[in-house]
């Protein structure tokens, strides 16, 4: 501990905690003050996150460890800042700020305690990304989930509560599985610190190996439920579609927590140092990812509702990430991390956008239209004299929304010129390069799945876009406040920036992936070599 820079690592957890507590104490009155505190906290979080990214990317200090209470390494509960966690904290800050500003226009008043819940959500997310301790991860997971229950049901109403009931039940079961997995790992490994556990993996006797693998698999299922892998991801589209727009935007990063934790823990526990268990579960991740892509693509095509379309595209992006991670190649993981950033920005923007587009439309118009299309019936109002003149001016708001929709479609389907295309290329190119002399069948499958899921997303987005903007335009142009259009524009601008700054970002994700695949640096930072004690567990 040498100065304030070292303490910066814990700020993303402490700051939202304080802001959230203050917001609860302030009560529901004094709107302006509350909004001011919430936005100030989110902006400060963004600044801190940017600083953390530059710290993590700086030379010589690749992994920063913050020991709570400055206990010695073996006892301490640690927060660990490396490239992956810094990147995710920054992403959380960006998405949090966007959702918060969006909510100021309208949604913050739809129910009680929106701002405190959002702050605790940010705290839980940041903590889950930063922690280096399995049990602490559980606690942050629960903070994050408890806040997300509130956010998912923000605004109330039968649809939200019904979806929320399923969401909570599924996540409570996942939390119990998490506990079982953690305690099995503790029982065999004798530690809860991820770094220590990883260091001990090689020394675990052969007869206990099956137990460790079982524990890790149960733990993995808990994270994969969160990541919505098929067949444990059925809860996702319904819950996200029912949630209010800013909540859905911030919820969409929750599924990425599961993926990041799987990525980190899998590489740490079952990396090359794990003797007999090296690479355990890799094929499962890849197969699960492929199944998720297939299910997500079908869901994208089958849906008739914009919000569900956004939910289904979360499934596609989860599947893509899992399949790419399961390959276990540093190059592919680097591409996957780039894809993760791009898809989080795109899906966040899309969830916000959906609500604005839906706002001016008659309820159920899109469902009716698709049904009509399917049965080939004409609408009654298709008489030529009723049709609006072709040169009728398009409302300005619709132009903005249409442009944003186009950007989202390009990003999600992975078409040039935006970052979605680069991301898919960054996953596919190393995958092809790694397979010298004949592609293994699984690689072919990943290749096909990635390209076909892009096609499915494109078809679905085109159909939804034509329906929303051309065939059944809103009865009255939606009123869009600058506070609502701004965050969407900012998220899409960041995605565009990701394309322009493709080189530096790819370098960052490559280095992040390289250090994830060689966790020695992480372990040595958490447990300084002289302090490494690998004693046998009784």
């Amino acid at each position, binding site marked *: 501990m040498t100065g304030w820079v070292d303490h910066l690592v814990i700020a993303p957890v402490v700051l939202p905690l304080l802001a959230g507590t203050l917001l609860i104490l302030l009560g529901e009155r004094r709107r302006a003050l509350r909004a001011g505190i919430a936005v100030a906290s989110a902006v400060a979080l963004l600044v801190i996150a940017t600083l953390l990214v530059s710290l993590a990317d700086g030379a010589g200090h690749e992994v920063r460890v913050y020991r709570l209470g400055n206990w010695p390494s073996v006892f301490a509960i640690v927060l660990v800042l490396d490239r992956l966690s810094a990147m995710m904290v920054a992403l959380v800050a960006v998405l949090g700020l966007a959702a918060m500003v969006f909510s100021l226009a309208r949604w913050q008043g739809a129910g009680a305690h929106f701002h405190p819940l959002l702050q605790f959500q940010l705290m839980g997310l940041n903590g889950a990304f930063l922690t280096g301790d399995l*049990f602490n991860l*559980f*606690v942050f997971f*629960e903070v994050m*989930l*408890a806040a997300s*229950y509130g956010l998912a*049901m923000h605004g*109330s*109403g*039968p649809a939200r*509560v*019904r979806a*929320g*009931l*399923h969401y*909570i*039940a599924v996540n*409570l*079961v996942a*939390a*119990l599985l998490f*506990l*079982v997995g*953690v*305690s*099995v790992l*503790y*029982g065999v490994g004798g530690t*809860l610190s991820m770094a220590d556990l990883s260091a001990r993996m090689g020394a675990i006797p052969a007869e206990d190996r099956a137990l460790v693998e079982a524990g890790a698999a149960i733990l993995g299922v808990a994270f994969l439920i969160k990541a919505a892998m098929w067949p444990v991801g059925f809860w996702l589209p319904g819950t996200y579609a029912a949630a209010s727009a800013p909540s859905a935007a911030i919820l969409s990063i929750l599924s990425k927590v599961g993926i990041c934790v799987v990525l980190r823990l899998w590489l740490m526990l079952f990396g090359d140092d794990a003797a007999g268990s090296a690479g355990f579960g890799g094929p499962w991740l890849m197969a699960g990812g492929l199944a998720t892509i297939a299910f997500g693509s079908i869901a994208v095509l089958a849906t008739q509702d914009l919000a569900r379309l956004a939910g289904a595209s979360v499934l596609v992006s989860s599947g893509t990430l899992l399949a790419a991670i399961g390959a276990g190649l540093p190059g592919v993981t680097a591409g996957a991390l780039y894809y993760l950033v791009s898809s989080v920005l795109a899906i966040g923007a899309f969830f916000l956008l959906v609500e604005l587009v839906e706002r001016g439309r008659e309820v159920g118009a899109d469902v009716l239209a698709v049904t009509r299309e399917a049965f080939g019936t004409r609408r009654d109002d298709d008489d030529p004299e009723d049709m609006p003149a072709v040169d009728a001016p398009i409302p300005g708001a619709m132009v903005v929304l249409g442009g944003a929709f186009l950007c989202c479609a390009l990003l999600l389907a992975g078409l040039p010129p935006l970052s979605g295309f680069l991301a898919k290329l960054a996953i596919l190119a190393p995958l092809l390069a790694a397979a010298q002399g004949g592609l293994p069948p699984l690689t072919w499958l990943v290749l096909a799945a990635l390209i076909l899921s892009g096609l499915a997303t494109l078809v679905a987005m085109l159909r939804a876009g034509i329906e929303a903007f051309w065939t059944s335009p809103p009865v009255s142009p939606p009123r869009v406040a600058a506070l609502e259009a701004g965050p969407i524009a900012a998220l899409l601008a960041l995605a565009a920036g990701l394309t322009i700054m493709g080189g530096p970002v790819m370098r960052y994700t490559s280095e992040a992936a390289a250090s994830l695949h060689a966790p020695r640096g992480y372990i040595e930072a958490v447990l300084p070599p002289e302090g490494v004690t690998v004693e046998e567990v*009784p």
Partner: protein
Amino acid sequence: MELIVALGIGVLTGSGVWLLLRPRTFQVIIGLSLLSYAVNLFIFSTGGLKTGQPPILPPGGEGNLLEYADPLPQALVLTAIVISFATTALFLVVLLAARGLTGTDHVDGRERER
């Protein structure tokens, strides 16, 4: 003692899973509670089952890991109890809200059509 604890965990888990899969929200919440009891017992048992052993080694004395109750799983159980209690309470509130809003205690918010 191992057998009793193992059977206890097994029976609690079995009943919990069965109740969890039932269609009424009340059955689901009881199932979740039973499951969380089972998991708490399971965490507790990972420290090894010992009777009459101190969790802290005597000061100055030679420690022996065989005559020592691991305190960490007990601390974990405490945390797990608190968290699962709180989330179950939250689930109860949502359950009541769902009952009020949909008029039924079916988990899907509507009765199955017969």
